[in-house]
């Protein structure tokens, strides 16, 4: 059986410091998987290894059963892997609609098209409108991203990744810095994602994690401590000791 995403014995060290130690992880089709762990556990490093920002020292990364470890970041995206960033990384001098349009033309591989007025492309406009409406961003279509609230910018981050129509979506702390009401909007959005998309979410907001994830992997000191259901993770004494504490016990 091939998984949407499979990581086998991944290792990464910066000099003598091992930050990813023999990590293995699988995401089935339509998975809602969370990766949790204390600061410095190596969660963002793992996302950077999967997306190609960093090169692993050893191990394999398979997307849909095919090895992608030697592919560039752009090629991995073309194979259906999209991500969001812990810190917003948007096209801040452009409008929300332009941000989404960029992702769509990149996905359609029409980004080198030199002719044809993009604002007169009725099909593209309709797709952008529909996409933004689904994410409650339709009213902000013509606003510069830099003029949006932080919460709205986080949603635009997700909008950009989803516009790529990925098979696997990696969300790096999407709720970081969000107000409670914005977290609810984000959760509603994530729960509404189609099952064709497998999601790996890294998050410190445990309420969000336990309400969203079906499987949770706990990473500590670059190693997998445990993978299991939210209930199993909540009850595990080791997880409570190193990360959750009593609140989620």
């Amino acid at each position, binding site marked *: 059986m091939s998984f949407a995403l499979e990581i086998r014995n991944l290792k990464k060290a910066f000099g003598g410091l091992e930050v990813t130690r023999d990590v293995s992880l699988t995401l089935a089709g339509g998975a809602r998987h969370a990766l949790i762990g204390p600061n410095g556990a190596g969660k963002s490093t793992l996302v950077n290894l999967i997306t190609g920002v960093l090169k692993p020292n050893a191990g394999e990364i398979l997307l849909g059963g095919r090895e992608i470890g030697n592919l560039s970041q752009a090629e991995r995206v*073309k194979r259906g892997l999209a991500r969001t960033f812990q810190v917003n990384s948007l096209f801040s001098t452009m409008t929300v609609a332009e941000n989404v349009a960029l992702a769509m033309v990149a996905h359609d591989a029409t*980004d*080198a098209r*030199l002719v044809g007025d993009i604002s007169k492309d009725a099909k593209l406009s309709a797709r952008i409108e529909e996409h933004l409406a689904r994410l409650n961003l339709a*009213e902000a279509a013509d606003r510069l991203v830099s003029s949006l609230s932080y919460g709205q910018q986080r949603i635009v981050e997700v909008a*950009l990744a989803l516009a790529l129509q990925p098979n696997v979506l990696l969300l790096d702390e999407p709720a970081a810095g969000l107000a409670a009401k914005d977290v609810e909007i984000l959760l509603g959005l994530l729960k509404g994602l189609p099952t064709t998309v497998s999601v790996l979410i890294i998050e410190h907001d445990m309420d969000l994690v336990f309400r969203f994830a079906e499987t949770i992997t706990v990473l500590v000191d670059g190693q997998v401590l445990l993978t299991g259901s939210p209930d199993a993770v909540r009850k595990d004494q080791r997880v409570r000791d190193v990360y959750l504490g009593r609140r989620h016990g």
Partner: protein
Amino acid sequence: MRELRDPSALPEMRSALRTHRLGWFEVVMLAVFAAVYYLLPGYLPLATQVAIMIIFAISLDLALGYGGIETLGHAVFYGIGGYAAGFYALYVWQEPISGLLVAALVAGLFGVLSGIVVLRAKGLTLVMLTLACATMVHEFANSMRAITGGDDGLSGYRIDPVLGLFRFDLFGRTAYVYSVCVLIVVFLLARIVANSNFGLVARGIRSNSQRMQLLGVPVLNRLVLLYAVSGALAGIAGALSAQVTKLVGLNTLAFTLSGNVLIVLILGGIGRLYGAVIGSIVFVALSDRAAAIDPFNWLFILGGLIVLVVWLAPDGIVGRFSALTWQFRKQERKP
């Protein structure tokens, strides 16, 4: 989740995907060019220089204003286009329009080859590499004196009448009309590129190239394509200059020209196409007037005026005008 508002109240996608639209500015510019022809016949050679500078500045605007390619060596394309058109007229055919196309092709090809090397760098390194590239070509042209004429320049060729009908005359009438027609074509071409999917992607690269990469866009390839298109248009400007002056000098490859066209864009406003038009008119007109006022210290006067404009309008003249228009509209909307 919030409920959606009435769809008619939502922003229009055409305005949300901001593209360059033809409007009153183009009509005014055409009227100005026509007026110069009829009312200022003595200034036609200067106005031809303005038209050529606008083409050159538009080409730089595509690279710098849209794609964020920081270059101090854009004259290399202008010079290569000029020499290509000169050699073409000297050894192959004197027909001017095919000369422009050959120049565009040669300059565009040089854009691809040099772009693959220099566009891997960013910031100051890129600035230095583009400058070094232009300097190398300049020195190459200088050392190949037997072919290029060195300091004396490439001359001794003639250019056939445009379309076989309009002979280049002593008063510069044909040269002016020809240059303005080429300018209109180049402006429309640049507008097509700027409004295309590729134009949007170029703006995206300028805004956040790392994220562009993570959207699956091969950023280097796209920058090379943009550099080649920009180089081809700059080559047309150089070729036009070679055809109307019947001379291609080493100065067409010089750093001064690269610097001047950058000043033109800073004056007019970057990333707007209109900035290239306004900046060129202001720059050439200021240079001419400053030289008329004081033939010895005109550069000092020009420098002072440029400092003044940049101080009062840091986003360029067009940028300042846009900001004022926006403020005016905002005030008008207030009840």
